[in-house]
């Protein structure tokens, strides 16, 4: 494990209204993914600055943090029974769905944020797969996008972590995201939203670079960028390993 800890700090400059809370800094630490690892953790944390002490009786503040991976266009396929066997019969394209999408909140999302605000800011798992291509013959494309969310949740690429943001003294907040090993490398974006009275009062984003480390990242990148070299290397390694293993067995027998 080579912890390539990157500490990024970014001041959220936007302050929408006076005397309101502003996030003064948000940071992440990321750890590169390696083979002996089953995943890695990204910690997003920040602090809220207040110009005045917390007024008594004011509604508490809530925080929503999302972490999104690079967008991908994917095909969602559905099996149907034809000629007695189950085969992929229909497919729907979902454009620019984040390859990873995690949402963490201080409390259940529908309790702290109004639906209109949620849709306006495109927060939530359903919003991650909203760009479903229309299909001439498939009427129930919504089933496909729901299935995509379900499958992604199952393999850990989508995460719904209600209550996973910890907020101390209404000032310091943090959330941990466990990234599975099968994530896509690249530019991730961590966004935070400050919520009060079911409305978003402040928001911002920072970029996080997620990289896989070690030999398997090197192999993967080689297979994508120089496939011929990768193919030749694979064969050469297989021949060498086959020969060595056989030679080893012969030696062991003597």
């Amino acid at each position, binding site marked *: 494990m080579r912890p390539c800890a990157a500490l990024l700090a970014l001041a959220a400059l936007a302050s929408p209204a006076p005397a309101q809370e502003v996030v003064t800094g948000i940071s992440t630490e990321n750890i590169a993914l390696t083979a002996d690892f089953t995943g890695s953790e990204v910690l997003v944390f920040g602090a809220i600055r207040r110009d005045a002490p917390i007024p008594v009786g004011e509604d508490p503040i809530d925080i929503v943090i999302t972490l999104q991976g690079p967008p991908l266009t994917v095909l969602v396929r559905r099996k149907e029974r034809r000629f007695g066997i189950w085969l992929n019969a229909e497919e729907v394209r979902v454009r620019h769905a984040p390859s990873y999408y995690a949402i963490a909140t201080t409390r259940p999302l529908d309790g702290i944020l109004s639906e209109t605000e949620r849709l306006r800011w495109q927060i939530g798992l359903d919003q991650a797969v909203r760009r479903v291509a229309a299909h001439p013959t498939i009427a129930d494309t919504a089933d496909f996008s729901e299935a995509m969310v379900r499958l992604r949740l199952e393999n850990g690429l989508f995460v719904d972590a209600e209550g996973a943001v910890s907020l101390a003294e209404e000032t310091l907040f943090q959330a941990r995201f466990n990234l599975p090993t099968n994530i896509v490398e690249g530019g991730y974006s961590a966004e935070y939203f400050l919520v009060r009275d079911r409305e978003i009062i402040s928001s911002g984003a920072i970029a996080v670079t997620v990289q896989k480390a070690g030999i398997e990242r090197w192999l993967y990148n080689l297979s994508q960028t120089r*496939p011929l070299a990768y193919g030749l290397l*694979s064969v050469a390694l297989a021949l060498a390993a086959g020969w060595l293993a056989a030679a080893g067995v012969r030696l062991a027998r003597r």
Partner: protein
Amino acid sequence: MQIYLPIAEISVNVFVLLGIGGMVGVISGLFGVGGGFILTPLLFFIGIPPAVAVASAANQIAGSSFSALLVHLRRKTVDVRMGGVLLAGGVLGSAGGVQIYSELREAGQFELAVSLLYVFLLGTIGVLMLNESLRAMRRRGDPNALLMPRKRHTWAQGLPLKMRFRTSQLYVSAIPPFVIGFVVGVLAAIMGVGGGFIMVPAMIYLIGMPTKVVIGTSLFQFLFVTGFTTVLQAVQNKSVDVLLSLLLLVGGVIGAQVGANFATRLRAEQLRIGLAVLVILVGFRLLLDLVIEPDELYSIAPRR
């Protein structure tokens, strides 16, 4: 101990892979078959995506046939000229197979096609083997029963484009070996098998090659065709997982030694019945997966 396979994009226990490689190695050592036809379905069962399993199995076969081929070359039991003709067909077949593979994958039907092929193949091999070994068991006690007449003249002798194959002491048409090589090449690309189960009988009964050069010559063809298939799969489909291949290979070579040791001590017919039953069970399991309604009807594929 979990290891992350970079192309298959899943974490698998190293010992599971070594175990599968070893088990297939034992089978190949016991029966003198490559075992690709049992290896690839086992990879499906542990959750390796079929497309990656098939391409990586081809790479594994290239590695496992190499050291065996060296032994045969030393013993001069390789008909290089015949191997060359088989190989010419094999390379063409492999190129065609990789193309078919890409198109099936794009259409989302690769899994279906490969499962159907395996059900058919395993069912046929299993039933034939079971039948053959049951007959052999009944024949036991009759010492003459095993003396099978080898036909030197087959219908293949009548075809044009005759070539002289010195090592095999044959003067036959190049068309049958070319066609056999082609078929085996297609299977290598689509199913991730060496294809010995087709090639070996065809070489003996169709071409009429002497048994002593059959194994060496088919290893020659496997090595180059699966090597070629690996490179093509890597270039065109990016589906070769070299870590997967290497782990299977190491398990396989060790397993093959164990199997070869056992083979001298155990009774052949009973072993063969065991293998036949195993082959039928694997085929049946694949068939069940096709027929029973799956728990999850939806799947996600990256658009390439």
